[in-house]
């Protein structure tokens, strides 16, 4: 579903991502962990086609994001670390706008908006301007808008920040459901407990380099993901 080959990205002289290779298959929840500034967001943004990279290739469902970004974007959804949305729109207008952008048919968009808004208990607030939303409500709206077009690949940057426990639980279930239907999830997180329980595979990045990746169980072994992560961080320091 997502294939990253030799991804390299520099900001001036600083190497943000260094020759990163990663392959995420349909049905997988792939966690991406690393310290602040390790290159997680840069990688995620490059996968979404909103950040140019210096070297390498990224394929979404076999299509190069460099060569055909529009085809790639129609298959993915992105939820950024900070849900900055159009404050001059109401929640429902925003969802409708996103549905228009993805050309979601009328009946399907109505059905999906109702389903997800009910799930995240946001239905009553959809007529309110986004400017009046709390951080958590914006995060829920960003999640709903990302799912309207039933993406094959969902790329999320710290998706659980700001969500209440119930919504957090709903999101985890949704993530699993997307994967059960053949989709894939690639998300960054600092919450290692969540990553350990939720992810099928884990990739650990440090200073732009991929230092470990594979099946979660294999990576953590008999230890916890936190212990492994801290050890790897310490080893390379």
């Amino acid at each position, binding site marked *: 579903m997502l294939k990253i080959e030799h991804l390299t990205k520099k900001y001036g002289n600083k190497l943000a991502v260094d020759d990163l290779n990663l392959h995420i298959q349909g049905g997988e929840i792939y966690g991406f962990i690393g310290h602040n500034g390790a290159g997680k967001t840069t990688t995620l943004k490059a996968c979404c086609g909103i*950040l140019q990279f210096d070297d390498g290739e990224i394929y979404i469902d076999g299509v190069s994001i460099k060569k055909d970004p529009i085809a790639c*974007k129609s298959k993915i959804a992105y939820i950024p670390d900070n849900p900055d949305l159009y404050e001059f729109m109401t929640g429902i207008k925003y969802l409708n706008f996103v*549905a*228009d952008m993805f050309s979601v048919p009328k009946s399907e968009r109505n059905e999906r908006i109702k389903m997800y808004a009910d799930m995240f208990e946001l239905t009553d607030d959809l007529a309110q301007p986004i400017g009046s939303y709390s951080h958590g409500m914006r995060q829920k709206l960003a999640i709903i808008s990302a799912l309207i077009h039933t993406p094959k690949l969902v790329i999320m940057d710290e998706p659980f920040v700001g969500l209440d426990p119930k919504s957090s639980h709903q999101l985890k279930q949704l993530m699993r459901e997307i994967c059960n239907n053949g989709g894939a999830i690639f998300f960054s997180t600092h919450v290692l407990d969540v990553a350990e329980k939720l992810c099928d595979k884990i990739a650990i990045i440090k200073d732009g380099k991929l230092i470990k990746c594979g099946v979660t169980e294999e990576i953590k072994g008999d230890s916890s993901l936190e212990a492994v992560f801290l050890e790897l961080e310490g080893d390379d320091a």
Partner: protein
Amino acid sequence: MLKALLNKQILEFFSLFTGSGKMGKKSNKKGMTVLYAVVFAYVFGAGGFMMYQIADALCPSLCSVGMGWLFFAIIGLMSVSLSVIFGIFTTQPMLYDAKDNDLLLSFPISASKILFSRMFLLYLQNLIFSLLIFIPAVVVYNSTVGTQPLTLVLQVIVMIILPLLSLVVECVVGWIVAVITSKMRRKNIVTLVLSVALLGAYFYLTTKMTDYMEYITGNAQQLGAKIINAFYPFYQMGRGACGEISSLLVFTGISLVVFAIVYFILSISFIKITTTKKGAKKVKYTGQMLETMSVSSALFKKELNRFFATPMYMLNCGLGVIFHIVIIVFVIVKKDALFEVFSVITVFEHHTLAMLVALTCAVAGMDLVTAPAVSLEGKNIWILQTMPLDSWQVLKAKLKLHLTINLPSSVLCIALTGAFMDVGVVGIITAEAFTIIFVCFCAVIGLICNLKIPNLNWTSEAVVIKQSASVLVSMLVNLGTIFAFGGLYYLLQRFLPAEIIILIFAIVLLAVTAVFTRNLKINGSKKFSYL
């Protein structure tokens, strides 16, 4: 702590002029410096020349009757009035609606310091206005009565102190507006109505300027007495600017005390105003059936929504529509007076058509809908970038908004004024052709400038709309284009009729616009995708 806040404000102020994308890329510093030197030279040159003319008409006659202080008092009143009229649009958003309110209030900093740092930025704005108006006045005064070093020093002090008074008036009005609208659902409308009223007052005063100047020079004694009674600080300021140290001290004292009182009052209410939630009644979503739209229609609707949701955007970038209507009404009502002016000023005689085109296009050239359009995406830009659409579609929606706002009034202005001024059918058609192409040109230039110098990291959209680099540069390019065509027209008018010249200009501008549009489509779209 206060120093850190002031540094932050100054950094934010200058970031508007350097531009910054999501990744903090800064534009070419040397190029930007040259560009700003040109912009400021233009603004100070044009504005300074106008002020010099006014000062030159007032100063000698007032100084000859020993009322030099009245001259400075009037200049001071003009400076404060203009600062207030133009500053009031930004005062409220800059003081109370900044996006970093929560962050700053969470720091162990007193609200009064946050307020002070924001007022400091407004002071700098007023200082620029003050210098623009005062420097020509000082030049005229000193060349009329002779330069005295001490007087010159006092005049400089007046220039530094006077913006404080402007700031006080702006803050009081801004505070009243903030208190009234803090719980209003339709806050935009109040801001819009107030802003239009102030602008109306400004243009009314401008049209009456000649009458006022005649009145001032003819009734200096009576007016002087009125100013002493009604505007005592300005009386002392006038005397101070003429070399009276004691008067300057009184003026400085009054200004500082008034500023301190206003600052104290605003400090008390600052937290309440900035943290008061909008009192809008909660509307419950009832689950109505949603309508679908094509991608281009949805993008255009989004642009329209943003435009009408932001009074500052409407006012600064759609004001030309009101001006076009004013021109139409003026031509209809004062047609004979206009012909009279054209016949008196020989350069304009027999060039009615060219004058109408220049006037209509000058107004259209100040309507900069596209110039802040990319910057206004701000931190929301990721939404459009992650959508499965060609960035050109996004840019086209922004261009379409510009044309939707500006084209109808421009076309109507040419058609009606042309008909009333009897320029003939051919004249109207050629003028329409040029004007339509010029509006398209302005739309494209605005977008190119904003893509070259974007600023996505703003804390107040008011400053992006009013003061950002792309807005200033676009206006300069638009007005420069009109001047360039005006110069060419002057050279060609001896050999060709106006209709032919305008038609040639329209063809040339069409070619230039086509080249720029192509550049925007290819390079601009790519740039937008990765801003």
